[in-house]
């Protein structure tokens, strides 16, 4: 891996992601306001909040799918700049899973998992396929490796998307509402994979409305509203004794019935 060059100072005691004074605007609209956040190695964080609160935008800043205007983001010791080499270096260390899966429909499941290994990590095809099959096995979908994404169910597609991200052996995984586009029957199979990943010690940042997942897996729950972090706490405290009125209102709305 080329990640550990002079620009990177990664070691066990530096945080995985460090965000200081982050601000972002869409035109005149202030989407992220003075965000400070530190994500430790192996930490599992659930980000929740009403729609439009900026939670997706926040995690999309961590691999530069969104550009921020103020503040500093450091991922695994590498500080984000405009430099495309630097950005791509960070992206190699950050896996992402999207709400709408975003699998490549013209490539088979196996090729979806091999493409970045072959072209970014420059692995030989045989080795890339081996890694791909290993991770497809882990998300329990190895038997579908030769199918195309369009032939799979939503839950299966999302598991392939997780395997595809893991094939790059990232240091941190970002989940952007991974179960929101799924039929209720399929949510569990995806959450099971995510729980297993959490138990393996992966650093995870997860934007989700699955409060059950937050309770069982998260080390910390972050509540956002209007582009700011309103409250962050371990799940027991967050769900049982929330401090802010805004959080209480939100929880009463999503846990009401």
């Amino acid at each position, binding site marked *: 891996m080329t990640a550990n060059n002079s620009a990177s100072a990664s070691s066990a005691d530096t945080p995985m992601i460090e965000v200081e004074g982050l601000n972002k605007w869409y035109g005149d609209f202030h989407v992220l306001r003075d965000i400070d956040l530190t994500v430790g190695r192996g930490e599992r964080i659930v980000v929740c909040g009403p729609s439009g609160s900026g939670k997706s935008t926040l995690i999309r800043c961590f691999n530069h*799918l969104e550009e921020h205007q103020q503040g500093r983001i450091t991922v695994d010791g590498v500080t984000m700049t405009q430099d495309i080499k630097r950005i*791509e270096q960070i*992206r190699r260390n950050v*896996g992402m899973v999207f709400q709408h899966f975003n699998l490549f429909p*013209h490539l088979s499941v196996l090729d979806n998992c091999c*493409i970045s290994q072959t072209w970014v990590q420059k692995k030989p095809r045989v080795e890339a396929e081996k890694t791909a099959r290993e991770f497809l096995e882990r998300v329990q979908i190895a038997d579908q490796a030769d199918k195309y994404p369009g032939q799979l169910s939503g839950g299966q597609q999302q598991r392939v998307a997780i395997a595809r*991200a893991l094939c790059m052996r990232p240091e941190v995984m970002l989940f952007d509402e991974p179960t929101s586009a799924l039929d209720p029957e399929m949510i569990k199979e995806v959450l099971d994979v995510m729980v297993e990943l959490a138990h393996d010690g992966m650093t995870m940042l997860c934007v989700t409305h699955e409060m059950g997942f937050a309770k069982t897996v998260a080390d910390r729950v972050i509540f956002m509203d209007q582009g700011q972090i309103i409250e962050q706490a371990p799940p027991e405290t967050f769900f049982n004794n929330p401090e802010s009125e805004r959080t209480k209102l939100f929880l009463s709305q999503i846990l009401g019935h």
Partner: protein
Amino acid sequence: MTTRTEMIEARRPPDMRRGVVGWLRANLFNGPLNSVLSVITMVLLAMMLWPMAKWALIDADWLGSTREACSGEGACWVFISARFETIIYGFYPDPERWRVNSVLAMMTLLVAWLAIPRLPAKRWVGAFALVGFPILAYVLLNGGHFGLVEVPTREWGGLMLTLTVATVGIVGSLPIGVVLALGRRSQMPLVRSLCVVFIEFWRGVPLITVLFMASVMLPLFVPTEVEFDKLLRALIGIMFFWSAYMAEVVRGGLQAIPSGQEEAAKALGLGYWRRMGLIVLPQALKMVIPGIVNTFIALFKDTSLVLIIGLFDLLAIIRAGLTDSDWLGFATEGYVFAALMFWVFCFSMSRYSQYIERRLHTGH
């Protein structure tokens, strides 16, 4: 309330009427009105098609080499067969025609090789078709090297010239069009404006104007020592003209790809050219195959416009034959034959594109 204890087994669909009779019943004679309409249509068709078939096939004269061989009742295909070599080779000197034949054979072989999925080594054959073959074809056709007599392009003509212009146009306009389409969507203002200006300029000018400019105006602007070949100038004009159209077709495809595709590719660490080459373009181009082939077909037919700058393509050479004093009065045969030739090439492209579309379909 009821509860089902046994699940229902899947059953075969009910029998439909099959075969020719069943089809005729269902589609042409499924009621008194439709039966009457079907009969009337068939009678009208027969009334139109019969004289055509009688003229073109039954009463036609096929054998011979002079106009005396034609009775004059039906079509005189002797007119075509007597001039066949000219129609294919134009004024290309007789002893050198093997060179045209070899290039045509090589091209047929390459196209067939690339078109048939089962044949191996597509990458190498494709690379040769794009790089080696044009050089080889130029050396063979133009001559002047390796002991080959030079045949200046003004002696080229007929089907051979049409195919040269069409092939260069098709092979050149697609890649230039793709680059222009990407450029038009670029984040860099300079690149974007250059592409927009290029596309809008060539798209805003009629092809005839482009050809006139290339053959008449251009020599006025460049010093007389610099001499471009007339055919070369026409080829460049045609290539740029059609690449502007191609760019807009491809851009349509690029815009239809959801932004999530590029985001996922970015998140995996793929750089711009890989994102485009591996993820976005394969999907976008597949989506616009109908548009691309439409442009190819239009390009193929519009090659006949080169006749206005004095190049003798397939159509022009047939027209030239009409004024031959030995063969006056066979314009219909000439034009029908020209139409047939153009139709065969265009229809093949259309069928092949439909086949490719089915083959590339991955169920989404």
